[in-house]
């Protein structure tokens, strides 16, 4: 009898603790953040924690920032919007000060109440951003700015020009059995938008019905046996190309740039069927522990000379139009800084909500992987 009682007490204690610990995880959904930013001329907090895409905290410009401001940058890299969003929100959301969200994560961050409204009067380069990137729908809601536009670009077809001849002009090559075992594509549910746009005529590939989703699933399942590996980080992609395990795939200009620097004959193309892409914004955590350093970093990386350096690393297009004054007309054209047609041709990542939602996309993607 006594043992039964002791057992019951132990169970009750465990349950009680579970409830207590579980309750601690409750999110603070207070949306009344002030729009007055910190004094950006004040001394920084000495540290800045970021979670961002590869290349956005490259040492070629971060070192200068650390020297200038005394803010030590601790970066965590993410390979997909999902991963970045999950990391950013882990542990209650105070772990990271800044994230470089693409459009398919930025609205999620805003709606979940995990990012702060930015004070554009403290963002020194804001007036020089392209007009369309000052108030884009992916970071500005009801006139409130939750993000500072940074870089944008397209998901391109990358190929090893020594092995893939003639030069491809169509995404169809990534479904061609001739290249069985030589293809690599991102391990990312948002990838579903690509075939939807390129093969099933969806003008808005992020808003597709169940029938289209099923067709995309079949198309991607057809592709699976050809795929050597679904890449997660840009470095995975680059390793696959360097080791010869993959000769073509869908990636970002960053990889073409890196592989060229490594001496490979790698080229990229925007295939005729069209491309998806992304426009990234720096967003500040509502629970940021180092807001001064965060504002300083946002101001630093949107400076024209630093935007030029980020472009050197990533080959993405800078948001600040004044970058052209630093890099010259030719490079400016190469980076499509002012090219409206190029900009508007890209279908930018956003989170699907209807008719099929992102959970259905994730489920479908898992079925493709098997």
């Amino acid at each position: 009898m006594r043992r039964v009682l002791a057992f019951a007490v132990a169970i009750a204690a465990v349950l009680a603790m579970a409830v207590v610990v579980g309750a601690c995880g409750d999110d603070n959904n207070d949306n009344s953040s002030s729009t007055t930013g910190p004094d950006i001329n004040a001394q920084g907090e000495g540290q800045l924690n970021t979670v961002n895409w590869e290349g956005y905290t490259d040492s070629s410009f971060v070192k200068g920032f650390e020297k200038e401001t005394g803010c030590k940058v601790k970066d965590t890299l993410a390979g997909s919007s999902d991963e970045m969003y999950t990391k950013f929100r882990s542990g209650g959301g105070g772990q990271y000060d800044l994230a470089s969200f693409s459009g398919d994560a930025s609205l999620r961050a805003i709606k979940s109440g995990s990012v702060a409204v930015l004070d554009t009067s403290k963002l020194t380069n804001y007036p020089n951003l392209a007009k369309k990137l000052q108030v884009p729908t992916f970071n500005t809601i009801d006139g409130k700015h939750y993000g500072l536009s940074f870089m944008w670009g397209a998901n391109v077809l990358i190929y090893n020009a020594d092995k893939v001849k003639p030069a491809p002009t169509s995404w169809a090559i990534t479904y061609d059995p001739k290249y069985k075992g030589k293809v690599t594509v991102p391990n990312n549910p948002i990838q579903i938008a690509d075939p939807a746009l390129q093969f099933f005529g969806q003008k808005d590939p992020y808003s597709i019905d169940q029938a289209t989703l099923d067709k995309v699933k079949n198309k991607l399942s057809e592709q699976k046996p050809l795929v050597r590996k679904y890449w997660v980080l840009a470095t995975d992609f680059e390793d696959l190309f360097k080791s010869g395990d993959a000769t073509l795939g869908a990636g970002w200009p960053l990889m073409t740039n890196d592989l060229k620097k490594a001496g490979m004959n790698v080229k990229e193309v925007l295939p005729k069927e069209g491309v998806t892409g992304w426009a990234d914004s720096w967003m500040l955590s509502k629970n940021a522990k180092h807001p001064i350093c965060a504002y300083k970093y946002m101001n630093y990386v949107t400076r024209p000379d630093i935007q030029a350096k980020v472009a050197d690393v990533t080959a993405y297009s800078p948001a600040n139009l004044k970058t052209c004054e630093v890099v010259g007309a030719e490079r400016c054209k190469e980076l499509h800084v002012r090219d409206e047609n190029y900009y508007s041709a890209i279908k930018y990542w956003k989170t699907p909500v209807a008719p099929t939602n992102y959970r259905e996309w994730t489920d479908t993607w898992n079925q493709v992987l098997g």
Partner: protein
Amino acid sequence: MESGTRLIRRRISRALYAHPRGRLGLLLGPAVLWLLIFYLVALVLLLMTSLWQQDFFTADIVRHWTLSNYDKVFTGQDGLWLKIYWRTVRLAAIVTLIDIALAFPLAWFMARIVAPKWRTIMFLAVVVPLWSSILVRIFAWRTILGGQGVLNQILVDTGILNHASSAFLYNERSIAIAWAYVWLPFMILPLYTALERIPDSYLEASRDLGAGVFTTFRRVILPLTFPGILAGSIFVFSLTMGDFVAPQLVGGGSQVLGGAIKDRFGVAADFPFGAALAMLTLLTLMLFLAITRRSGALENV
């Protein structure tokens, strides 16, 4: 002041001396509390989370009690998750068998044949790799099995293959190889202990009674080392069921349970569904342990 603290100390020690139960409580308390919070409470939280849902847009947990996650695990998506589950169990079983086959001769050699001074060196050779990161040890297999890897180079140089094959890396086979390699010490060590304990006289007696090598192995050595094999199998099987590093580094597209769970938690932020999958792993391992226990093999380890 000095005498005051001494007085208190003396009182405490006297109280502890008079109450052995209090003494025991103080000694065990911290450890029990630790287990309670970080083990039992965590498990209960996992179970509770698996009965909740996720908001697909914000990824917030919706605390609405439902069995839908388990429904999805067992019947959803054309049996996708069960397929992944069985794939993982099959791989774990294969890896365990490979490790038994590899570890047995090695452990036999270490325990019964080699000279004692070499034994220490062999022991170190088995244990030292465990000090390096598992990431590095699995990554090494990429440089061995890859398109321009060591294996392909040898095969092409010797003319066995015309051109480098891509069949060695980024598939289930390469995952199994990497797992069999990294978990091997966990099989060797218990097997070594079991083999070392068999008295020579048993083997001599078996031979005197007319048993051949095979019969001695089957009827004397195997039953005596069975607990060691089982202990090693528990390690290897459970480590395999939960690992996500090997599938990520050397796996292809097809998912295994550890990787799928890691992605639910670390990428998709679908904690509830991830928790349901984790419960499935947990139940499998508990079942495996229960069977092992019932077989009585653990009683003389």
